[in-house]
């Protein structure tokens, strides 16, 4: 049963992938101006432009171009970046792990801290703790990410000087041997504790800045759901049977209450990818999001399409995993029979 469920989810995910590729491709072609001319600049001669057009295959019909794009993409060939003059796949392979590391740490913060704070606020409902937590959560939600980024940078970077504010590692250190591309994990795998610690210190500020809006939202959502579940008859029953309050909050109330939160985590993850570049700019984080913005500003089509495709694949994967986890937690969806 679970197997079928997973297959269906993957199937629809694949369709989404195709759809996005078409969308992005269409957008890129609808854009005004001739891509070749734009790339070469206005000083180029018509022959040069024509040559580039042939090279890029722009003289063929749109569906054929799309097909070409897809077949190459499947092989991992996204062409040459007009911005960096290197293979796009190389650019992405270099920058993606950085953003991934950042977003993973942020998601952990959002998922764990957000839920814990939400449960705490619900447990201490009405007290000052609750009010304070709610205030922090609201501020997190309404303040733009870049404001948080600048604020944290000033506070912890300049004034207090506790944490570094640029790059992934201190300048004098070399990255760990490449296994996953995630410096913290790679450093731990290589047994280099100091390196891991340094990487961790560098990721803290950007990850916190990135996670704050989603963290606030998760905390508020969890709090509201917890409060509502607390009024349910099945929770009252647990209480009437003397189950300790802590168990009730963290186990019996949390599981049904967390379902809406879990539903959103997948979307939050993708949204974090979207916002990541704001943080990457401020903290000079060499990530794919920043790269993506550069491709946009430089009208580098290949780079742009590749970036979007990678993000979509990620989205599909994350959503499938989330759906599976939800099905585990909420057994009704599995479609089991009656006893």
């Amino acid at each position, binding site marked *: 049963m679970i197997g079928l469920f997973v297959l269906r989810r993957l199937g629809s995910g694949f369709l*989404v992938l195709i759809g996005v590729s078409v*969308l992005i491709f269409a957008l890129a072609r609808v854009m005004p101006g001739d891509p070749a001319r734009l790339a070469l600049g206005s000083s180029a001669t018509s022959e040069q432009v024509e040559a580039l057009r042939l090279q890029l295959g722009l003289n063929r019909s749109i569906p054929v171009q799309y097909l070409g794009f897809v077949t190459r993409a499947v092989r991992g060939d996204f062409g040459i970046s007009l911005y960096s003059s290197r293979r796009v796949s190389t650019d992405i392979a270099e920058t993606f792990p950085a953003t991934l590391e950042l977003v993973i740490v942020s998601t952990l913060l959002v998922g764990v801290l957000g839920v814990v704070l939400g449960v705490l606020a619900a447990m201490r409902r009405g007290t000052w703790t609750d009010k304070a937590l709610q205030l922090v959560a609201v501020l997190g939600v*309404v303040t733009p990410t870049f404001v948080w980024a600048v604020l944290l940078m000033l506070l912890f970077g300049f004034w207090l000087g506790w944490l570094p504010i640029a790059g992934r590692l201190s300048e004098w250190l070399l990255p760990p041997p490449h296994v996953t591309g995630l410096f913290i994990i790679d450093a731990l795998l290589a047994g280099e504790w100091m390196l891991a610690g340094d990487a961790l210190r560098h990721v803290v500020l950007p990850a916190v800045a990135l996670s704050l809006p989603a963290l606030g939202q998760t905390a508020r959502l969890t709090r509201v759901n917890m409060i509502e579940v607390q009024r349910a008859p099945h929770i009252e029953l647990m209480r009437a049977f003397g189950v300790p309050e802590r168990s009730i909050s963290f186990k019996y109330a949390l599981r049904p209450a967390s379902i809406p939160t879990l539903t959103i985590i997948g979307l939050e993850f993708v949204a974090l990818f979207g916002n990541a*570049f704001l943080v990457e700019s401020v903290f000079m984080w060499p990530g794919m999001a920043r790269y993506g913005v550069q491709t946009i500003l430089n009208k580098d089509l290949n780079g742009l399409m590749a970036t979007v495709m990678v993000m979509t694949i990620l989205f599909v994967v994350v959503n499938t995993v989330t759906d599976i986890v939800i099905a585990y937690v909420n057994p009704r969806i599995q479609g089991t029979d009656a006893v």
Partner: protein
Amino acid sequence: MNRRGATRGRIAWYRFSRGRFQVIGLVIVSLVSVGALAAPLIAPYPEHAGRFVDVENIYRAPDAQHLMGTDAVGRDVFSRLLFAYRSSMLLSIVVLALAVPVGVIVGLCAGYLGGWTETVAMRITDIFLAVPSLVLAMAILGLFAPSLTMTMIAVAVGWWPWYARLVYNQTRSICTEEYITAAHVTGASATRMMFTEILPVTSGTVLTKMTLDMGFVILLGSSLGFIGLGAQPPTPDLGTMVAEGTALLPDVWWQPVFASLAILVVVLGFNLLGDGLRDLFGVES
């Protein structure tokens, strides 16, 4: 039970006004709206919102003449913020005016009509949801020339699927209710069914989301402005104004600080108001 003869409206207002925060939200939103609408009238230096340079007065700290100081070319920050509010509110209104009808109609049709309509509509919705709104907006703005108008279109394109999904889910669950089958049996046409039976039920959720979204669109708009993809200079833009001042922190602090606060305040206002509406309508998340 109308024991005290109170109308539903009065009870609703009573419940709403009990919550301090919701009222604060309403106050903030009203003030900002008035400020935005009346900007040309109440701004102390309305001409600063356009091309204006006053080299004598650059980087003045906040004082009696310039409540929030001046910027890199001597323009009054407070006046520019008022005009920036104008652009932001306009952005939100237009984006929602475009996105909400499209999303709601798609969601209604998909949920009610089912079959191929449903499959196709929701697939398309999923596709648009797959790309984060910020990325989509940036892509569109990057490929076409950035401006306030383009920003509106770019954001709206990324925004409508949320409404489609919201309304779709609600329509699906309502359709299983018996009163829909009952109305169906009376021979009501599909359009009538959707708009007179189902739509009113979803209106509470949709309205709540719209209120919250007013704030979130402004947030998105300011993020775009931060990278320069919003309204182009010399038109004032909240995000751009934050970005402009950042390099000089912490000495010349007033522009980024006041611009950030401006964003924070307006988003907060809509958020509080939206939460109040959510409590009022008894909406599930």
